[in-house]
């Protein structure tokens, strides 16, 4: 029988840990392979700003100690692993008094909120459109209207975002240009505040949904046509099932399986995949934070963000792996 057994869960969990461990090791190694010293770079930047910094050598030393960069590599490595484990990445290099975990903590809800919503809408709308396009009984009027929607997917998201911004923010003035929420409203669970959040999220979400929908729709359309040719569809039709049941339980249900695998992979990119959209809408999420960390050479912040991205990707894949046998009974986790 199919289903999940304990040894499978244990092995998946170990794999999850291994993935995160390798990821963490890579983020430790890669910045250290690049030339230059972040602390020296920072101090020289300060020197460039103010002309002269007193005791710069002593200052560099002090900061190296402060950021734990003075010890041998294995001590640094163990410290880094420890900070990954505790999710405590210390202070941001460029915005000194701010702590990395606090900065990430502030950004995560924005990104997760925006992208969970946008990805789900994209997935559902795209697959429904694709399913209708691939279904023989779809009226021709609907069928010919659908490809029009797909032309949006040939426009790069950043161009599309600008077009949306131009139309809805500049021209019509219906929606705000950028940001996450209007700061004039008091933070909390009140309608003006929530409304402001929704208004600010609409354009970035729309840019993501409309440009990504086409890919899902095309994949789903192909799968629907393949599924429709299967013998079980013929038998189901001969059984006299209602068209809705035929469509959802037999055709869509089977055509969805490869799409769900693709969704699992895209969930992994959920947090990190929106950098571009967040940047040009100045949306206060992880993507925008990562962009500013990179432009400011903020190594601790970058390390923290990338680690969070690795963590979410690995976790999304782990979750999909664990629930997959519930979706497709042929995937059995029993060890043979």
């Amino acid at each position, binding site marked *: 029988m199919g289903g999940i057994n304990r040894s499978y869960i244990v092995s998946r969990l170990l794999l999850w840990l291994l993935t995160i461990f390798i990821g963490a090791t890579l983020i430790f190694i890669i910045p250290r392979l690049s030339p230059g010293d972040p602390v020296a770079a920072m101090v020289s930047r300060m020197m460039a700003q103010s002309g002269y910094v007193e005791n710069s050598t002593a200052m560099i030393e002090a900061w190296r100690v402060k950021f734990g960069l003075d010890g041998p590599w294995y001590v640094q490595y163990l410290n880094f692993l420890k900070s990954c484990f505790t999710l405590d990445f210390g202070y941001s290099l460029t915005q000194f008094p701010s702590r990395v975990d606090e900065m990430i903590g502030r950004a995560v809800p924005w990104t997760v909120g925006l992208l969970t919503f946008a990805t789900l809408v994209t997935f559902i709308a795209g697959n429904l459109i694709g399913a209708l396009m691939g279904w023989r009984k779809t009226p021709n009027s609907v069928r010919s209207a659908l490809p029009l929607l797909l032309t949006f997917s040939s426009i790069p998201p950043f161009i599309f975002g600008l077009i949306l911004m131009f139309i809805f923010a500049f021209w019509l003035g219906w929606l705000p240009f950028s940001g996450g929420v209007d700061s004039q409203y008091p933070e909390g669970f009140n309608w003006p505040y929530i409304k402001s959040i929704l208004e600010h999220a609409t354009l970035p979400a729309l840019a993501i949904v409309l440009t990504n929908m086409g890919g899902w729709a095309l994949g789903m359309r192909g799968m629907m046509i393949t599924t429709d040719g299967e013998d079980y569809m013929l038998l189901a*039709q*001969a059984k*006299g099932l209602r068209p809705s049941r035929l469509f959802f*339980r037999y055709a869509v249900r089977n055509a969805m399986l490869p799409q769900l695998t693709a969704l699992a992979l895209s969930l992994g990119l959920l947090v990190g995949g929106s950098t571009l959209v967040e940047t040009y809408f100045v949306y206060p999420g992880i993507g925008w934070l990562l962009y500013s960390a990179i432009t400011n050479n903020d190594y601790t912040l970058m390390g923290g963000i990338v680690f969070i991205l690795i963590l979410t990707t690995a976790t999304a894949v782990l979750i999909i792996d664990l629930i997959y046998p519930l979706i497709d009974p042929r995937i059995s986790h029993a060890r043979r």
Partner: protein
Amino acid sequence: MSTSTSTPQAKTAYGAGREVVLDVDELRVHYRTPTGDVKAVNGVSFQVFAGETVGLVGESGCGKTTTAMAVLRMVQPPGRIVSGHATVAGTDVVGLNEKELREMRWVKLALIPQGAMNSLNPVMRIRTQIADAIETHLGKQPKEKLKARILELLNQVGLPARVYDMYPHELSGGMKQRVCVAMAIALNPPLIIADEPTSALDVVVQRVVAQTLMDVKKRLGVSMILIGHDMGLQAQMVDRIIVMYAGNIVEIAPITRAFKIPLHPYTQLLIASIPSIKERKPLKVTEGITHDLRNPPPGCVFQYRCPFVQEICRTKKPTLREYTSGHQAACHLYESPDDMGSHAQAAAAMKELDR
């Protein structure tokens, strides 16, 4: 239902007084192609009586599956039923609208599909798929009653009760095909169409499935159309056999007569081509070519391959005539029942060909 619901009468002396379960009348199915319609089923008429198993044989592309699909009203585009009627238990399926058709399906006419390996929805349990067939037509059933019914059906086809909770991928090919048999009899339909039900199986499993079919048929008294090209299987299972060639019926005969005195040269060739374990002989049916189905020639459809072709075969299309009780053939070799003697000549000529 608004369409004709008169019970058709038997059209041959053979069927006199028997209940007609399926009456196919001048059925034509065409497939549209850029260079003209392919006449896949070109005016086919036959009847199936209550409790009878009828074999439908012929080479690939002769229209046997298309005929069956037309009776189910499941001809897929670009195919379409051009004319004719197919009356299943009093209802002409050709005239039904989508809703009437849906309500009629499985209640009056069930299908045991070709390719059993792939006929069950891979993500649904066996119980759900059988329940689907039952509840679509009888409405929501009490849980216990439904379960008892499904277990009874599985038992009838010789499957263990544990199959109830299984998924298709956990079953062997033979078990899957028996699930299809169980599903087909779920609503006690008067007619089951079995489209090469054993062709995807190995011989041992074929036997089991064939046995199951016969058991079920005997117990329920259901009529059955058995499509196939395995003449051996047909000989064992059917009461009457219908031989098709290039979209036309060339012969209908009670099975023993078909094997003893096949009238149509094509039937003779078919039977002569059954491999024998006693001797090896070259295959006979392969000689000649079938005409282009878009442009059937005037005259007999078999003229290009017939070893006994005459002048008249080139110009006049032979009609299906009943020679002895239940034995019909469409061939100019036998102009009247008295000409049956010429069959002896034909058979002798056949032997001659065999050497």
